[in-house]
């Protein structure tokens, strides 16, 4: 089994880790780095609970190898707020009660963040299809969609 020494930028900080060839980024984050904010719901790319942002793209960390992220920029849920200041998406999720058990929330927040960076003014349909890769069993998605649309509006207002 080959072992790899990797340096990546995670939430703006340079991080070194070693991993086995067969370890996914999800395993590295949770087990090697103890960054447990990224969740494991299925391990096969079907639930989106492990969504992180890799070089600007929202992807499933369970489908990326730890060995291949040398030099990459990774954003996880732990880096979404700035100090104690919540990102507008995080704030709106609280305001809209867009979480019940909260296990899907970190993944959905990352997907939504990447979505709004590409499309700052999405329709409800675009939000729903953009979130199709994130399963939520508690909320029925209604309040999640409202929270994302409201955050998008606020972020647009902040830009102008």
């Amino acid at each position: 089994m080959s072992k790899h020494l990797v340096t990546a930028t995670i939430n703006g900080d340079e991080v070194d880790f070693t991993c086995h060839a067969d370890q996914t980024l999800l395993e590295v984050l949770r087990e090697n780095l103890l960054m447990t904010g990224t969740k494991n719901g299925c391990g096969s790319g079907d639930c989106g609970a492990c969504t992180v942002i890799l070089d600007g793209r929202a992807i499933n960390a369970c489908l990326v190898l730890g060995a291949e992220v040398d030099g990459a920029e990774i954003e996880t849920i732990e880096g979404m707020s700035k100090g104690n200041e919540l990102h507008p998406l995080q704030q709106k999720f609280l305001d809209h009660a867009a979480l019940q058990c909260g296990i899907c929330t970190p993944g959905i927040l990352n997907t939504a963040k990447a979505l709004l960076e590409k499309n700052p003014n999405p329709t409800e349909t675009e939000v729903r299809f953009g979130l199709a890769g994130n399963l939520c069993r508690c909320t029925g998605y209604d309040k999640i969609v409202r929270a994302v649309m409201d955050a998008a509006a606020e972020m647009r207002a902040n830009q102008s």
Partner: protein
Amino acid sequence: MNEIKNDAKTNYKWVGKRTRRPDGPDKVTGRARYGDDMVMAGMLFGKVLRSPHAHAKILSIDTSKAEALKGVKAVVTHKDIPEHAPLQPPYGPVIADLHDISRNVMARDKVLYDGHPVAAVAATSERIARQALKLIEVEYEVLPHVLDPLEAAQPDAPVLHEDQFTHGIEPAPEKPSNVFRVVSSERGDLDKGFAEADVIVEREFRTQPVHQGYIEPQALIASASEDGAVELWTTTQGHFVIRAFCARVLKMDMATIRVTASEIGGGFGGKNNVYAEPVAIRLSQKTGRPVRMVMTRDEVFRGTGPASGTYSHIRMGAKKDGTIVAVEAEIYNQAGAFKGSPVGRSLDSFISSYTVENVRATAYDVCVNRPKVAAYRAPGAPMATLPAELAINELAEKLGMDPIDMRIKNAVGDGGQSLNGVKYGHIGLMEVLERAKNHDHYKAPLGANQGRGFALGYWMHGGGLSSVVANLLDDGTVAIATGNPDIGGSRSSMRAMAAEELGVDLETIKPIVADTGSMGYSHLTAGSRTTFATGMAVINSVQEIIEKLRALAAKKWDIPVDEVTWEAGQAVTQRDGIEALTLKQLAGMATKMGGAIAGHSEINAGGAGAAFCAQIVDVEVDPETGFVAPKRYTVIQDVGRAVSPDYVEGQMQGGAVQGIGWALNEEYIYDDKGRLQNTGFLDYRMPVASDLPMIDTVIVEVPNPNHPYGVRGVGEPPLVPAPAAVASAVENAAGIKAASLPLSPPKVLDAMERAHGEG
């Protein structure tokens, strides 16, 4: 659009307001710790070896090669789990048989389903643990298996338990059976009733097992100490119940096991049981190290319990004026590998919302070679509500009557009771039906290939044991500990009720969920009982603090305590010249004037209130493919009082969407060897965001007179009518009669062709 109709005029300061939940920031930042987010130094990794056969005798288990593998520290088989005698009759409504539970945790002489645990190992890494499983040699004698409850009930079916004889039939049988029991309820005169009917409908249904679908797999760490004490961290809906199960299964003293509930990533009833906990404790005892065990998604589907699949048959008769005069219904519930499906609740759900004079209902609890079923949001109710509600809709159609009018005509009133004699008390059924009938959705025009469905559901939530401890701190803040894991925002509601009672700001109250070592027994966060029962215990605890504060003020003022009242967060008296004392002031004095002030309450809450939920659903069917798209959905529910309206709405929306999945796409698919084929979210198809419209909610509040704030349980009713409402909409959109869930596209297409001729 979400509306709240406040039938009780009282305007509270916190109860009923949309407030920020206390655990919110931790959950949106990834800080909150769920089952798999805990680490303990030196921890080992445990993995379970599972049966690849649906039904087989275990002839031998050889773990020697696994034990010899470098890095493996211990192995557990049934030899390490104590034997338990079977539960003896009489049997209550809920079965908890240690003989069964211990066998479900680890198979003894037989494996009874694909996924049944056979052995477990603990090793220094997950990789080594998985390797070790491959080295365990199990010799099986494969037996014929049975998956369908009707087939399993036949006399020639393969028998799962040679020592199980059907209860509830006369004469007592001598041949073992997969049918554990038959329960039935009867009233009136069925023949006379049907004779009076002007129209009779007869329907048959099949439903598939559906999994609760929580996104967080089961996960735990067990750590056993040499002095016998065990610490257990686990994701669960009830850590006191887990403690009890572990202690009983392993024959340990309960107090030696201290369970901390992690944050929970969904449960819906599926995390009320033990699976790996006793095994992990054993592995930890053998190794002297903490052992972490986390299920893969594959294991969750193969090894944990879904809701029962069913076969049901109903015959219903009504008079021209819409009065339902007779109902005859039966349902076969799959229990999975061990007895105990919720047959009593199924019986209760056939006609629970209606007064019908002549009824006979029968339910069969049938073992099949599938995972042992577990509770799922109103266990037993959705699958019995389905045949009843679709039969009523068909009767209404034949009589040319509006479906909601037909419900109104037959609606049960205050003082009504269920088939099993559960009394309803004061209920809000009529209010719910009126709101449904007058809702915009009910009148909105439908487009091409669209259809509308209506269904009504009933659920009587639980009460039960809850304990709470409330401590007043020196600075006037209040720490409240409950024993109920917070699945959906209950800490918010506890805080609101406490703040309301005390008359202080929300931020004064800090709610936590404490471990089993810190306080008295609390039953599960389940059965829609938490806001109701634990809420009452919170209120009692805070009232005890108020009594002590009044006494303290009286002492300070040197006046009789009955001249002191508590108003808006202060002790006040009518006496001249005495200024009121605030909570903060009194708190600062307490320890100098007698001692710390605390309140606690251990109750067995009674006085649950029946709840009713009506749903209106529009779907659109693609006539060339059978694809069904939900287009509009409205949930109207009597919640008694919405303590935290945001979260009440969330329960209504979440339950409705689970119902959509149940009705349209969720099912277990087995091969001819009885092995589960869809063990992941790819082929176990739960609704995704793009499948759905917004779910509109109408909160009706007809307060429950038995709760200080009028609360009725809110979590379960939204799922009860949902599969029926969606199925009814599909029937109307496609012009078909639904006979089997899920109404997946091939079934709908096929039914449309048979109904309309070649498509």
